């Protein structure tokens, strides 16, 4: 081990010891009460995650309802000409002989 490595190790060790003996500060009086006040506020505030979830579900429900209405109206609209077409086709079959006699 070179003298430089030894010096580095010494400095590392003293800094580790300095970290270990770092004084623990004394908290301000009423600190715990302040934390509890904030915790009670957190409890009464609406949870942002819940708000987002509610918006997502509401949007999904509206989108589903719109899709259902559009589908039903499309089916209703497309059924009328289909009946008409089928009726005309039936008339055509009835009035025209299928095979030449």
């Amino acid at each position, binding site marked *: 081990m070179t003298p430089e490595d030894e010096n*580095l190790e010494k400095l590392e060790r003293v800094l580790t010891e*300095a*970290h270990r003996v770092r004084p623990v500060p004394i*908290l301000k009086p009423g600190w*715990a009460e302040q*934390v509890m006040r904030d915790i009670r506020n957190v409890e009464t505030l609406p949870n942002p995650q819940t708000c987002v979830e509610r918006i997502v579900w509401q949007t999904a429900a509206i989108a589903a309802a719109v899709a259902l209405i559009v589908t039903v109206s499309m089916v209703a609209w497309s059924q009328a000409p289909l009946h008409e077409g089928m009726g005309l086709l039936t008339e055509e079959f009835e009035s025209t002989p299928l095979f030449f006699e």
Partner: protein
Amino acid sequence: MSVHSLPTNALSVVGLPMADESLPGRTTTDDEELLRRIGRGEIDRFADLISRYQKHVIRIVSRRVPADRVDEIAHDVFVRAYVGLAQFSRSVAFEHWLAGIAVRTCYDFWRMRKGEELPVSALTTAHQQWMDHVLASQSDDQFCEQARRREAAEVLEWALEQLSPENRAVLTLVHLEGHSVREAAHLLGWSIINVKVRAHRARQALRTILINNHWESEHDAGR
């Protein structure tokens, strides 16, 4: 078998950090009961958890952030713990879970500070002289005396300021506090490989900082 039912010495076998000596003697069933009551809506019972663990949290926080910010960060730790209480799986002791939140809150503090780009403090002649005293100290008593000096804390802070928040967090846990890589990974919520690589890089970075300073001071003395 849950971790709670293991004898205390078995915790070191499974690689979990041991309980802090500053914690009052009690069983984890007390915590379980408190957590159950808080879960049922008795919010005021959280004050009991605060008084039980505030020393533990303050000790962790005060070794990581400036002294004037300890109150505020410790406050955040308990609020975060309360908000995340539903995610506490009880697979580890409550103090270990809380220690993880404390370590990550301090890490977040330095990440936020990184964005502010504050100037790094410079070492003075007094700090250089302190380093010379350290290198010249022969006995353990002299060495410990140097470690207790104000300059020791200031040089440590000066060196840590120059590290990235990630390197700082890992160096503090692994090299300064002697946690195993697995414990550090558990506390930071990172992978073991990530912590192992970071721990190596962080130590190299610290050594480079110290070497560069040594060269600079020798260069200045030579001029």
